[in-house]
């Protein structure tokens, strides 16, 4: 007997399984949503300037002209200069690289680990589920910034450890979300049908479970990116995230605070504005994605404020 290439259960397809046209639909819904479209444009610009920072930035981020230190915004330095005479605009541009990198890697870690844990937990059930979920509960019992601080305290502060800490902190959000989706899909008629026809676990997970958890995971990824970038900025501001001389926005604000008495407002204003715009853009795209993909999903506020 040959392996059946066609799974009859697929005819009982879940109505919301994503397929090509659905993606196009999502994208056009996203573009029609003006706020989300604006968010995507800002994000695209940010990514471009991060990637081509060497070309876009007028100066190198380490280039200091000590004679022209603490200069307010002017023709040569649009965002002014810092206490070492470095160009704030160039440092903000190079800072985008750090922020986006930390955000992407950290959320990448929580996305992969969290999805895996959620899949195993939801699909296997039993004691594995109990152990994994209680572990996630414990991680969830710590306030986010505090847990990140504790992890960094153990690992010593650095760019890499910031990513690891934020990655660990956000893992339970993904694990719980995916587990919930898996539990609801697992008992669907078409999945039970597929199982009774002898489909392997792998086949059921890849054909039926994963496509159904994709939408909420995508939304969560975008919203988590926003929050991860905020957390990185906070850790760097506290001096336990990204370390100098690397230009991170939070670190620039830490520097800037020391020069508030001198009235160097530009050192505080621009790096913070960059964080704010990036986070806002990601939130708008995330909200737009949620409306387009998964209207039932919890709002961004719920996914962050109420842990």
């Amino acid at each position, binding site marked *: 007997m040959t392996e059946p290439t066609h799974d009859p259960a697929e005819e009982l397809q879940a109505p919301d399984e994503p397929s090509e046209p659905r993606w196009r639909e999502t994208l056009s819904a996203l573009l029609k949503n003006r706020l989300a479209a604006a968010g995507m444009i800002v994000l695209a610009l940010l990514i471009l300037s991060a990637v081509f920072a060497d070309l876009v930035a007028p100066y190198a981020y380490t280039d200091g002209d000590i004679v022209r230190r603490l200069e307010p915004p002017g023709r040569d330095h649009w965002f002014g200069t810092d206490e070492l005479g470095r160009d704030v605009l160039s440092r903000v541009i190079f800072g985008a690289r750090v922020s986006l990198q930390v955000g992407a890697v950290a959320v990448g870690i929580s996305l992969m680990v969290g999805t895996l844990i959620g899949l195993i937990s939801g699909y296997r059930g039993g004691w594995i589920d109990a152990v994994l979920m*209680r*572990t996630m*509960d*414990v991680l*969830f*019992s*710590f*306030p*986010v*910034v*505090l847990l990140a*601080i*504790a992890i*960094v*305290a*153990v690992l010593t502060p650095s760019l890499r450890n910031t990513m690891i800490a934020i990655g660990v902190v956000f893992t339970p959000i993904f694990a719980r979300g995916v587990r919930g989706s898996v539990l609801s899909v697992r008992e669907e008629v078409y999945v039970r049908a597929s199982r009774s026809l002898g489909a392997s676990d792998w086949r059921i997970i890849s054909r039926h479970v994963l496509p159904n958890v994709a939408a909420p995971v995508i939304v969560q990824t975008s919203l988590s990116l*926003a929050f991860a970038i*905020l957390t990185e*900025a*906070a850790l760097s*501001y*506290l*001096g*336990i995230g990204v370390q100098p001389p690397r230009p991170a926005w*939070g670190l620039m*604000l830490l520097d*800037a*605070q020391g020069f*508030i*008495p001198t*009235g160097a*407002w530009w050192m*505080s*204003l621009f*790096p*913070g504005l960059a*964080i*704010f715009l990036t*986070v*806002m853009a990601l*939130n*708008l795209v995330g909200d737009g994605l949620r409306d387009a993909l998964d209207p039932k999903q919890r*709002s*961004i*506020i719920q996914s*962050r*404020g*109420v*842990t």
Partner: protein
Amino acid sequence: MGRYVLRRTAQAAVALLGVSIVVFALIHLVPGDPVRPALGTRFDQELYETLIARAGLDQPLLLQYWNWLTSALTGDLGVSFRTGQPVTGALLQRLPATMLLAFAALLVGLLIALPAGIVSAVRQGRPVDYAASSFSQIGVSVPDFWFGLLLILVFARSLGWLPPSGYVSPLEDPVEAIRRLILPATTAGVVTGAILTRFVRSSVLEAMGAEHVRLARAKGMPERYILRHHVLRNAWIPVVTITGLQLATLLGGIVVVEVVFAWPGIGRLALDAVVRRDYPVLQGAVLLIATGFLLINLLVDLLYARLDPRITTS
């Protein structure tokens, strides 16, 4: 109801046990010797050995955990590697400042969110609704420490109206205490207010859509009466819940605001402990905040179940 209370409490107890394991593990996950770096140049063999013995670091791991846990339960969190002083004393000394800031911030948040949320629900789709939702969108995207820096720039440095930082106990000088509290409480409160505004708006909207509200309106009752007696009475339950959860979140996130304003609270203490590698203090601070966080969440859940009995059956 009783079963729910029992189950939810047991769940919190298990989580708390897990938290204690993680906090205990902190000091053991540090690569190398945890005591030596804290002493730095003041290194002294006798002091070093005393600290090791006092922290029980010379005993088997399981016994260490047991001793640490039972002492923690009686309020003994060990001594600081830096000062040799009891950790519990240091925490208690810092606690009032943190509580004051957290409650003040919550008050600011509610003062913003209640009017903004109710008005924007009542005037749904009107300009005031857009203004409120823009505010909350901006509020959740603003890094709180940056907002704090801007407030210092404007109100302390440029206008000179308020002191830029520091803490004065309200028992010593109430007026000065409030002047010092305004900027940090606004910083943490605006972000909280932004989050709460959305919840207030959506729970008022939900209550407004209820059958009995439509009936009241059909009977021709005045809108103001309907709002007060039918809508807000139902809307306040979720709002109370969210407010409680926000308090927990505030407590956890307040470390950053404490640093901006040189506010001598628990968060600041925890951060200093990280920098100084003073692990017992870090453990104590983390344990205290995480326990508070868990307890508030538990209380809010139980309160919610009490206010809305449908929760326990689902």
